[in-house]
């Protein structure tokens, strides 16, 4: 007998909250991206827990798609950071205040 599903949901909620706090409060864009990964991860836990709960692999498949999405997001996000860093020599979110450079 596994822990009941709501245990997983609370774990997921905790990770999600921490992720949101990271996104909203940190100044460094890389940390913000990492916090987004945390959020996606929290979602994955939910999906896999439900997949187990309903005895169907669909949830796992969704989690796989989310991991794919996270990979794409990380690639593009880090690409933007590098491009920005080359131009402005900063990785702080509140210094990224130009629409165009």
């Amino acid at each position, binding site marked *: 007998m596994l822990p009941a599903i709501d245990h997983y949901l609370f774990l997921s909620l905790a990770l999600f909250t921490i992720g949101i706090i990271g996104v909203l409060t940190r100044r460094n864009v890389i940390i913000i991206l990492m916090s987004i990964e945390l959020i996606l991860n929290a979602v994955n836990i939910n999906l896999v827990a439900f997949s187990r709960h309903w005895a169907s692999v669909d949830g796992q498949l969704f989690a796989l798609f989310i991991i794919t999405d996270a990979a794409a997001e990380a690639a593009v996000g880090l690409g933007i950071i*590098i491009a920005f*860093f*080359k131009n402005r*020599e900063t990785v702080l979110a509140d210094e990224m205040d130009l629409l165009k450079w």
Partner: protein
Amino acid sequence: MAERPITGFANIEQTVLGADEIILNMGPQHPSTHGVLRVKLRLDGERILDSECIIGYLHRGVEKIAEHRSYQQFAPYVDRMDYVAAISNGLGYCEAVEKLLGVEAPPRAKVVRTILTELQRIASHLLWLGTHALDIGALTPVFYCFREREEILKIVEKYCGARLTTHAFRIGGLQYDTYDGFEQEVKRFLEDFTAKIDEYEQLLTENRIWVARTKGIGVLTVQEAIDLGATGPVLRGSGMKWDIRKAFPYAAYDKYEFEIPTGQNGDTYDRYLVRIQELRQSRHICLQAIEDIPSGPILGKVGKVLKPPPGEVYHSIEAPKGELGYYIVSDGTVQPYRVRIRPPSFINLEALSKMVRGHLVADVVAIIGTLDIVLGEVDR
């Protein structure tokens, strides 16, 4: 940034992400700076924007020492400059002093000097080939090269008792005559040697990684090489047919026929080919010389105390690494007034920062290798 288009650096359009530049100190404690050379590199990622050579870690004041030694006493000191080609150093110094004195070594001494110097050239080039290949990551050639170099060192040891800092010649000729079986041993070595060169070439010349690592790397045009004063294989690799053995023959070189190998593009690969060809040519010269060593005295008419007339002399020879020149000023006493040495490594090293610009860190190692420097000679 660079004054000339960067040729060797294949079309990598700045693969390195624009991290800020870093300064990397290569050396003086670094496995492939051939001693205690320190190269300060300004890098963008792994690309070299600028470089600066810092030398002097091995400075012993050889030129100054000369002013406080008699002419004979100074002779062993020159062996400690280019310590992998001590015989060549000694030859240059002895001939310079002989020129100052106005004496000439007897023919037998001249021929023996030629043979030993050419053997030394082979040994020096072998050492270069092995370490150069090792720098580029080929682990095996170095042992093959040392195997043959060992044969030469054995011959030299049998001749004068020392292997590295030999002090083989004396002013005015030779101290020792050749030992019994000298000719046979040299000949046996030379006869096997072609096959050995083929063996090195088999490992490297056509190897695709080797070609990729050396072709187009560290290009030096003829004009640049001349402007920088580069000599020896570095100059010949750029396509200039210049060899002091042919231009101003010394020792017995005027008696033998040999070719001056030259490259075309002045890149590392061409210099490699030039040196390999020089190995073959040196073997050719030695074979001719060993055939008939004239008999006769080995030491010319020089006194026990050398007091050259006041005056100055410049004499240069083709050392394995390039033009090795001695400028000696005499004031008529037993000690030289001034000795100035033109070391080939030092002047060839000047080309380094021109050659490495725009290349990668890995190429610096290849380029230092291809210049064939010995820090003992650079710093003196």
